C-alpha cells in the first residue's frame, strides 16, 4: 500500500468568527505515523476533518503528494477515516460494510470478495463476515471499520480518536494492532487524540496543539524530554513547576530554595519557571544535603510509588521505585536529575539540556520556618 506526503500550508478555519485552526503549516512524511495531540478545542479534529474533506479551510492549502486537494469533495479524496464513534452500518453485515466502497467503484464481484476476505484476515475477523455489527464487540467493530477504511487503499489514513469508545484493555490491544498494521501496510497515518499515552506509544512524531495553533512538533522522546513550553510539558506527562529568579549559576525559588544550573544559561535577575518531572526527583538519604522535604503522602501506583513532598511552602511530586521505603512524616533530601527552565509566562524553554543531577540547596532553617511568597510553586500532574 502506498504512503503519501501530506502538506498543510497556512491552513485556517473559523467557526462563527472564532478561529478553530489558526494558520497551521505541517508536513506529514510518506509512511509516517503522526499524531495531533491536544486538549478539547485545540483544533486537532478540525484539521483532520479538513484533510478528510469534511470541512473546507477558510484559507491555506492542503496538498497530498503535491496536489492541492483543498477543494476536492470528500468522496473523491485519497483518504479514509476511522471515526471516534462506532460507525459501522448496522443493517449491513461485516462483509458488506467492508465491500461498500468497492461496490460503489464497480469492482468485479470476485475481486471484491477476495479483497474483503483479505482485509478481514488482516484484522483477524475472517470468520465473522456474515455477522451484523451488533453481534460484535466494540473492539471487533473498530477492526471492521479499519478494514473498511483500508479497503479503498487510501494514501492517507485518518484516525479520529478511534480508541476512545473502547474499554482500557481493548484500547491497548487495538492500538498495538493498529500500529503494527500501519507499519506493515505503510499508509501515511494521521491520528487525533488527547491521550498522551496513546500518542507516545503510536507516533513517529507528535504535533502538540493548543488554541488552534501548533505548540511543538517532534518525536515522542524529543517532546517529552525537551518540551518547548510549560503547556507542552504539563500536557505530555506530569511536571512540577516553580517560579524563580536567576541568581548567578542558580535558580532561586520561593523561600530561598536554590537549584544550580549550567554556566552561561541565565542572566542575573531573569524571572523564569522551573519544571521538574516527578520521575526526575531522586530521594537521597544523604543527610549532608541542605534542603529537606517532608513526605506528606505516599500512593502506590502498582509499578511505582507517587510521593507528595513539602519543603516549607514548596510542593513537590515525585515518582519513585516501588522498592523505595518511605512513609508520611519522613524527612528526605532530594536531587533533580534534570530541570527544565522556561521564560516567565510559560514561554520558550531557556535551558532545555540541564543534564547534571542537581542537589536542591536551601538555608538549613528553611524547612522548619517555611517560606514566604511561594505563590509560584506547585505541582501540575
Amino acid at each position, binding site marked *: 500500500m502506498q504512503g503519501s506526503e501530506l502538506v498543510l500550508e497556512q491552513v485556517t478555519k473559523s467557526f462563527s468568527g472564532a478561529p478553530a485552526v489558526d494558520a497551521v503549516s505541517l508536513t506529514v512524511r510518506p509512511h509516517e505515523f503522526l499524531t495531533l495531540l491536544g486538549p478539547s478545542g485545540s483544533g486537532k479534529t478540525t484539521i483532520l476533518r479538513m484533510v478528510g474533506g469534511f470541512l473546507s479551510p477558510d484559507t491555506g492549502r492542503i496538498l497530498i503528494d503535491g496536489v492541492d486537494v483543498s477543494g476536492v469533495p470528500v468522496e473523491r479524496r485519497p483518504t479514509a477515516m476511522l*471515526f471516534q464513534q462506532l*460507525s459501522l452500518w448496522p443493517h449491513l453485515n461485516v462483509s458488506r460494510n467492508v465491500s461498500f466502497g468497492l461496490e460503489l467503484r464497480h469492482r468485479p464481484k470476485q475481486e471484491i470478495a477476495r479483497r474483503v476476505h483479505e482485509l478481514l484476515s488482516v484484522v483477524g475477523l475472517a470468520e465473522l463476515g456474515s455477522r451484523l455489527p451488533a453481534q460484535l464487540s466494540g473492539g471487533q467493530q473498530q477492526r471492521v471499520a479499519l478494514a473498511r477504511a483500508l479497503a479503498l487503499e487510501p494514501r492517507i489514513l485518518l484516525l479520529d480518536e478511534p480508541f476512545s469508545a473502547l474499554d482500557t484493555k481493548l484500547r491497548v490491544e487495538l492500538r498495538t494492532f493498529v500500529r503494527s498494521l500501519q507499519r506493515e501496510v505503510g499508509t501515511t497515518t494521521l491520528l487525533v487524540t488527547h491521550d498522551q499515552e496513546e500518542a507516545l506509544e503510536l507516533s513517529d512524531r507528535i504535533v502538540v496543539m493548543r488554541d488552534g495553533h501548533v505548540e511543538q512538533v517532534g518525536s515522542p522522546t524529543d517532546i517529552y524530554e525537551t518540551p518547548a513550553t510549560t503547556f507542552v510539558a504539563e500536557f505530555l506527562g506530569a511536571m512540577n513547576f516553580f517560579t524563580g529568579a536567576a541568581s548567578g549559576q542558580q535558580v532561586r525559588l520561593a523561600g530561598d530554595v536554590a537549584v544550580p544550573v549550567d554556566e552561561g544559561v541565565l542572566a542575573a535577575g531573569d524571572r523564569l519557571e522551573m519544571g521538574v518531572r516527578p520521575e526526575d526527583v531522586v530521594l537521597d538519604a544523604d543527610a549532608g544535603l541542605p534542603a529537606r522535604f517532608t513526605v506528606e503522602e505516599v500512593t502506590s501506583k502498582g509499578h511505582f510509588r507517587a510521593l507528595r513532598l513539602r519543603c516549607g511552602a514548596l510542593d513537590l511530586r515525585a515518582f519513585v521505585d516501588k522498592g523505595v521505603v518511605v512513609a508520611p512524616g519522613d524527612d528526605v533530601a532530594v536531587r533533580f536529575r534534570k530541570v527544565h527552565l522556561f521564560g516567565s509566562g510559560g514561554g520558550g524553554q531557556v535551558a532545555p539540556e540541564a543534564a547534571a543531577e542537581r542537589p536542591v540547596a536551601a538555608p538549613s532553617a528553611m524547612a522548619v520556618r517555611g517560606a514566604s511568597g511561594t505563590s509560584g510553586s506547585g505541582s501540575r500532574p
Partner: protein
Amino acid sequence: MSETSVSTEVAEAVVGGAGAPGAPAPRARRSRRSAEGGSRGGLAGLLGYLPVAFLLVFGGIPIVFSLLLMFGHLGGPNAAISELGQGEIPAHGIGTLGAITQLFENASYRQDIFATVMVFVVTAAVVLAIAALLTFWHRLRPSKPLAVLQFLAVIPLFIPVVIASFSLWTFWGDRGFTNSLAQLAGWSNGLIFSGRIQGVILAETWVSLPFAVLLLRAGVASLGDSSLDAGRDAGARPFTIARRIMLPQLRRECTVVFCFTAVGALGSFTVPYIVGPSSPVMLGVDAVNTYTAYNQPQQAAVIGFTIFVLAALIGCVYALGSRSRRVGRG
C-alpha cells in the same frame, strides 16, 4: 420483588424466632402478607383488564353486532335498527352474503373502493416521499431554505382539518386562486382540483405531512454523524447515502409514516366530504351516505367491513415493515 420478600421473611424469622414473646406467628404473618400481595395483584390485574374490557364493550360488541347485521341477522340486538332501515336482505339459516354481493355487483361501489385505495396509497407514497426528501436532504446538505420548508410542513398540524379542507376547496376551486392564475395565463379551467380525487390526494397530503415530517426528522436525527460521514468517506454521493445508508436504517420510521398516513387517509371523512367529488366517493363518505342518506344500515355495515379489511391489509404492511432484522444483508 419476590427475592426481597423472601429475604425479609428469613431475617424476621431469625430475629424474632418462632417463640419470641409478643410476636405473631410467622405463618400468620405470611398469610397476612400474601393476602396483601394478593389484593395488590388483583388491583394491578384490574387496572390491566379495564382497558381490555372497555374495548370489548364499546368496540368489540358493536363490531359483532355489525357483522351479524351484515350477514342478514336483523333480529335481536339489530332489531331496532332493522325496523327503520331499508333494502335489507335477511338471513336464512346461518347468514347471507346478499348485502355484500349486492354492493360488489354495483359498479359505482367498485369505483368507490378503487378511488379509496388510490387515495390512500398515493397519499401515503407522496407524503413519505416529500417527508423523506425534506428531512434526508436537510441532514445531508443543511440549508436555510430546507429548514424553512421543514417548518412550513409542520404548520398544518395546528390547523383544524375542517377549516383546512374548506380553504383548500376554495383555493383549488373553479373560482379559486390556482385556477384564476391559470386563466390569467390563458389556460382555461386548467388548475381545478376541488371536486376531484386529485384534490382529495392533495388535501390528504397537506393534512398528513406534519406528522410524517416530525417522525422522520426524529429518525434522521437519531442517525450518527459518523455513520453518514463514513458513507461519504467510502465514496458515496448524497443520493447513494440516502438510499443505501439512511433509508435502510430508517425502514421502521418510513413504514410507520406510510402506514399511519394510509390508515389516516383511508378512514378520513372531512377532507373527501368537503374537497372530494360526489362520485366516486371515498368509502368513509360512502358509508355515512349509505347510512344517513339512503337509510341502508346493512349496506353501510358492509362498507365498514370493507374499510376494516383494507385497514387490516395496511396493518400487515406495518407488521412486515417494522419487524426486526435478524440476519444481515450479505
